[in-house]
């Protein structure tokens, strides 16, 4: 009978908390959205599954060795840890607090003590440490994105870089929104949190994860989920804004065909960009450095094998670990918070403002260029989200004029948006990091 009771006490049903049940349901919802609705499935499948695994009671997959020891170890282990951490209380909460406050040496001692008693980091915790806390996974993804990006349309019409810059206004407006909510007492965000939330408006998953891991690791789960969900929703969020801000005549403007861009220019561009980053904003160097490296591998033509790996095999491997690691941050105590609602709300506002600013900037440029050469629809593509945002521009252009193919014209602002959001990320890290 005792054995039976032990088994019952070790079961998930006995140990599960309401928060964990809710988070497992959230994970299932993400899986549903990814599988049935095709929302960014490459990321939401691993994130949703990771979220479910992170919330399995007693498994401790997303917890560090010491957290596992505190949770599972029993009185003897708690006493042991309390002694290592030099505190008298053996309450789990007190030990957790002391562990997070401890200096480096004591911290390490507590980890060793837990390891000695057979408690180790959960699998997802290890993935998170290696893939995201180190910064490696978002940067490797950025390298892959660089290897997939063709800067041809941008080089043919460099002025579209302004559209990529204008669309970043969404990021900074959202930062202001987040600190505004805090000032009004509705939410409680620090300036670092606000910066990490704003970057959702950059519509660039790896950039958002990279910035969040540096500025607000606690909010990473919510920020990554918001960023990828809204990227999947681009075809729904953008068109109403684009229609509202443009006239029928403007949507009909067809653009002249882009000039041919010689290979040498394509090879030199990542190098010029890298030099500019090195001179002006070293904080953006990790992101843009990897991006330029990936692109150089693509364009130089002598390392096709490396370029092929970067944009296929490697990016797929990294995506698996990145998704599971993000999922590990979907634990009930971090995610079930009013802050998460605030993040989801601010994220969609960021998207909307970014889109609007891109379109308005394109209208201004069109007016300045004589009024009949730049279709304002390509402005919305300035919020990265490659290549979805460019496809949306193309679709709306075709609706207005069935002979109007804007895709290649929209790819310019689209990749400019990637550069723009990476620069914005560098500025954020520089100012509030």
């Amino acid at each position, binding site marked *: 009978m005792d054995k039976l009771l032990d088994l019952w006490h070790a079961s998930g049903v006995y140990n599960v908390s309401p928060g964990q049940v809710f988070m497992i349901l959230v994970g299932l919802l993400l899986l549903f959205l990814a599988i049935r609705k095709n929302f960014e499935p490459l990321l939401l499948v691993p994130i949703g599954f990771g979220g479910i695994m992170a919330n399995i009671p007693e498994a401790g997959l997303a917890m560090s060795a010491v957290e596992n020891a505190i949770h599972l170890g029993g009185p003897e282990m708690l006493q042991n840890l309390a002694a290592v951490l030099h505190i008298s209380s053996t309450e789990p909460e007190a030990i957790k607090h002391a562990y997070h406050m401890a200096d480096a040496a004591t911290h390490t001692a507590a980890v060793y003590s837990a390891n000695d008693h057979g408690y180790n980091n959960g699998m997802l915790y290890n993935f998170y440490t290696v893939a995201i806390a180190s910064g490696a996974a978002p940067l490797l993804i950025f390298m892959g994105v660089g290897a997939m990006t063709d800067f041809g349309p941008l080089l043919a019409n460099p002025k579209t870089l302004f559209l990529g810059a204008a669309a970043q206004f969404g990021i900074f407006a959202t930062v202001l929104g987040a600190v505004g909510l805090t000032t009004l007492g509705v939410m409680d965000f620090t300036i670092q949190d606000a910066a990490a939330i704003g970057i959702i408006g950059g519509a660039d998953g790896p950039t958002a994860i990279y910035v969040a891991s540096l500025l607000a690791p606690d909010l990473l789960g919510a920020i990554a989920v918001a960023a990828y969900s809204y990227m999947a929703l681009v075809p729904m969020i953008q068109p109403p804004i684009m229609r509202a801000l443009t006239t029928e005549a403007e949507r009909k403007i067809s653009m002249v065909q882009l000039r041919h861009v*010689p290979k040498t220019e394509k090879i030199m561009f990542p190098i*010029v960009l890298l030099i500019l980053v090195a001179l002006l904003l070293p904080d953006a160097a990790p992101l843009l450095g990897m991006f330029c490296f990936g692109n150089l591998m693509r364009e130089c033509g002598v390392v096709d094998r490396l370029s092929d790996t970067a944009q296929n095999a490697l990016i797929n491997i990294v995506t698996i670990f990145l998704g599971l690691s993000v999922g590990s941050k979907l634990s009930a105590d971090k995610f079930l918070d009013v802050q998460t609602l605030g993040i989801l709300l601010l994220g969609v506002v960021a998207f909307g403002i970014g889109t609007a600013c891109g379109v308005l900037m394109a209208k201004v440029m069109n007016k300045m260029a004589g009024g009949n050469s730049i279709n304002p629809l390509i402005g919305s593509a300035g919020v990265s989200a490659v290549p979805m945002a460019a496809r949306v521009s193309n679709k709306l252009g075709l609706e207005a004029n069935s002979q109007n193919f804007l895709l290649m014209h929209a790819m310019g602002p689209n990749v400019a948006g990637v550069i723009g959001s990476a*620069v914005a990320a560098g500025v954020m890290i520089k100012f509030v990091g």
Partner: protein
Amino acid sequence: MDNLMSEGLNLMVFGMGFVFVFLTLLVFATGIMSKLIAKVAPEAAPAPAKSTPAAAVAAPASGGDELVAVMTAAVHQFRKH
């Protein structure tokens, strides 16, 4: 609280300003690069692409009969074998 708000405003003004400055410089740098490349190392590919059809068009105009003769001879030579 006000402090936080002003920090946010600062971040917005400087951040947005910097993004624009950076991308403006990039526009200029790209423009200069494109011009330099066009001057120093004009791409070889489009040049022959233009000259080949030009030669083909020019040939029949100047020596059309000769070309026909050569081709007829070549066809005869080919049929003999």
